[in-house]
């Protein structure tokens, strides 16, 4: 646990809350607005008194002014299931620290944040299929389970977001706030999965984790490039031209991903592994309206 996240950072996260766009349907009380009116401090509306209503909810000031018996209704604060859907394919091994380690730290931070907000949190690592996960539960004990699973899970295998998300949807019936964390370095294969998540009504936060050398590769003369997932090899002399051409291709790939997400109203957070998690959470997530 200590290797993933430190206590000082957790204390700085304590005052943050997730912002959800829609009203949550959870029946248990939480800190997120629910479509059902209920008991809370946040005023929602007036409605005419009906027999059976609590006499204490009658607004006597309004009755004095308008001579109408109205009762006050309040926003019901429901809990929100938060799903951490993390890519643990072999490509996440790349980088120093590895993208997988960075993603694990991000999961630990967001999981802690959600559990502090009385939400249920579940962890669902995937490669080209869903790996054994942690079902969403309440309580701070859950963070321990999540951290142990993050530490125990070794990145390996190939990536298939569509397949992983498909299995995730099959395992979870209730929609929630989904953090989809991956390097998204596949020619495609994520569109269908994200569309299905949206169809179920999940709110999705997409975080793309990249190693700095993937964003700005260094020149290295004659180099044998090895794909860590497929073990395919390519020998190339990486000079200025090769680096420039790679940068163009990566930019096009990123633009395609961003366009797809923007069209669906989803934010994309790019997290280079040399960006401190604290800055990602405090600056980018807050600026993106994920946290308040």
């Amino acid at each position, binding site marked *: 646990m200590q290797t993933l996240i430190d206590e000082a950072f957790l204390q700085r996260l304590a005052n943050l809350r997730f912002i959800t766009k829609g009203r949550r349907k959870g029946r248990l009380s939480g800190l997120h607005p629910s479509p059902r009116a209920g008991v809370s401090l946040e005023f929602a509306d007036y409605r005419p008194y009906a027999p059976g209503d609590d006499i204490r909810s009658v607004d006597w000031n309004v009755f004095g002014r308008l001579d109408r018996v109205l009762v006050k209704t309040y926003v019901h604060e429901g809990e929100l299931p938060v799903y951490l859907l993390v890519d643990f394919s072999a490509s996440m091994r*790349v980088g120093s620290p590895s993208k997988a380690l960075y993603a694990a730290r991000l999961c630990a931070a967001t999981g802690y944040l959600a559990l502090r907000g009385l939400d249920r949190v579940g962890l669902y690592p995937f490669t080209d299929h869903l790996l054994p996960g942690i079902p969403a539960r309440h309580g701070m004990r859950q963070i321990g389970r999540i951290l142990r699973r993050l530490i125990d899970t070794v990145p390996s295998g190939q990536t298939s977001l569509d397949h992983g998300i498909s299995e995730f949807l099959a395992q979870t019936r209730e929609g929630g706030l989904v953090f989809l964390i991956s390097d998204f370095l*596949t020619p495609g294969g994520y569109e269908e999965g994200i569309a299905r998540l949206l169809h179920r009504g999940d709110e999705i936060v997409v975080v793309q984790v990249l190693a700095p050398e993937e964003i700005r590769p260094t020149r290295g*003369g004659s180099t*044998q490039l090895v*794909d860590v997932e497929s073990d395919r090899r390519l020998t190339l002399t990486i*000079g200025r031209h*090769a680096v420039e051409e790679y940068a163009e291709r990566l930019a096009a790939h990123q633009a395609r991903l961003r366009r797809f997400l923007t069209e669906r109203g989803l934010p994309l957070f790019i997290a280079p592994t040399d960006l401190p998690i604290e800055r990602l959470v405090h600056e980018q997530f807050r600026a993106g309206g994920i946290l308040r």
Partner: protein
Amino acid sequence: MLLRPSALGLLAFALLILILHLLRSRERRREVSALFLWEGIRGDPRSTAARIRQRIDLLLLLQLAALFALAVALAEPAWRRQVANLGGLVVVIDGSASMRGETPEGGVRYREALDRAIDLIVHQPARRTGVIQLSTRPAVLAAPGATSGEILDRLRRSEPTWYGDGSPDDLASILQSFGGGAAFDRIVLFTDRAWDDLPAEVEVESVSTGPNRAITRFSVREHPVEPGAVALVEIRNDFEDLQSVRVRIRDESTETALSLLLAPHETERVVIPFPGSRGTRFTATLEPADAFAADDVRYFALERPIELRVRWIGEPNRYLLAALRAVTPVLLVENDPDLTVVYSASAPAGSRGDLLLVHSDAPGIVRLGDERPATDPVTATTPGHRLLQGVDPSALRVREITELTEERPGTVILAAAGSPLLVEYPGPDRTVLLFTADLMRTNLPVTVDFPILIANWIGQLVRLPALEAHRWTHVGDPVTLAGRGVPLSFVGPDRDRSALPDDIVSVRFSEPGHYTLETDRGTFPIAVNVPTSESFVDDRPTDARRVAAAETVESLIDLRPIAAGAAIGLLLVEALAHWRRPRRRKRRTAA
């Protein structure tokens, strides 16, 4: 030069290393997440310089360098030079205590002498080389015939002694044992002092010295009136300027101190009261210490008189007993005495040990006869006898003299009216003294000579240590153990106990400090100091001696160890570089 150049053929293996190196894949390996982003990219054209740069590998360079060093080592490299060659060389190192002092540059004099001696031996090799360490107890460090390795090893391991300076006679004697000084081309003495009367063939190499200040005398006595002691300290300042110093005196439990300003080239004597001290081991320290620290500390042992066990036979006599007690504390005992006193009685048959007979006889030695008046003055039949030291016999008067019959011949020391008055009967294991007259019929008890005479007698009989003996013993000087009982052991300054044989009569100490002699009679402190002659050495230059004209010969210095060491070092560096390279790659992969 190379003694076996054919070994350079080993360099042909360089070609093999180069071929193997070129055959190895040169591409660097990089793991990527998305090969599809790289596919189709045209690689950059590589310049010739880049190709060469890529081909040149640190490991290759290290391997080639190691091969080169190995080939050179096998080719037996040597450096040829012309050196003077001697038939015989004797190196004499002054090993006296003053060589422990520092040079003006801050080094140790002995170490400087060693370095120069080693330099001489290395750069002017001789067929026979001997090494002598000269002091009051000279030692041969290496006899002629020892190998140069042995000589250098013994020289490097040698340490200066605490003894005083050796003498030219000692040196001449050792050179004689080497076959005579004439048998050697050079005899070089490394020393910090000037020498007179050295053998003519000895050259002197001076080791530089600096000014010194030292405690040259230190003694302590009991205060004559009050409890405590008084210390006398003499300090000499050899510096060119005033020296502010502090003299600290301490015994086993307390200490006292005195600050002084010493004039240049002056000797100062101070008396320092030490009230309340009941110690026996005193140490004087001069602060701050200077370049020769050994003489800034001096030791002194205030030996108290020992208790004399006396068996008294016959009539009591207060005069004689008082005289005995004036000499030393007396304990009257019945058994196991140090001395038996027989007064106007007959010594029991079979008595053993030293015997003082006063108007008494002893069977088997002497028998007393009739008494007769004596009017003639007392005369010394053996003038200057040690038993009469400080005594004027002509002042003695005897009213009656006793005739005696000797059964064993004795030495008559005093006589009166033609008869013996004081007779000594020396023996192999005991001494008997006989005063024939009745003490109370002489004027002896009321003369000033009486306690002196008794002290002489007791000193002769039991060999007492001197009263409040002022002990200042030098390193290497013999310390007589007689008069202190049967020696058992001594304890050194470092608290180590060494057993002593029963029949030992004297000991020598090789280091300064406080020692404790343990006997069956008790413990006796002994203070041992560095000889004061070591404090202020005469460093005027000694007359130049002849330097042997040495023939020049060719010498080869073997460079193989250097080349072999370089080869091993390069291989180790190459192995380390090779080990680090895959680790870096593995770390990247694991990350």
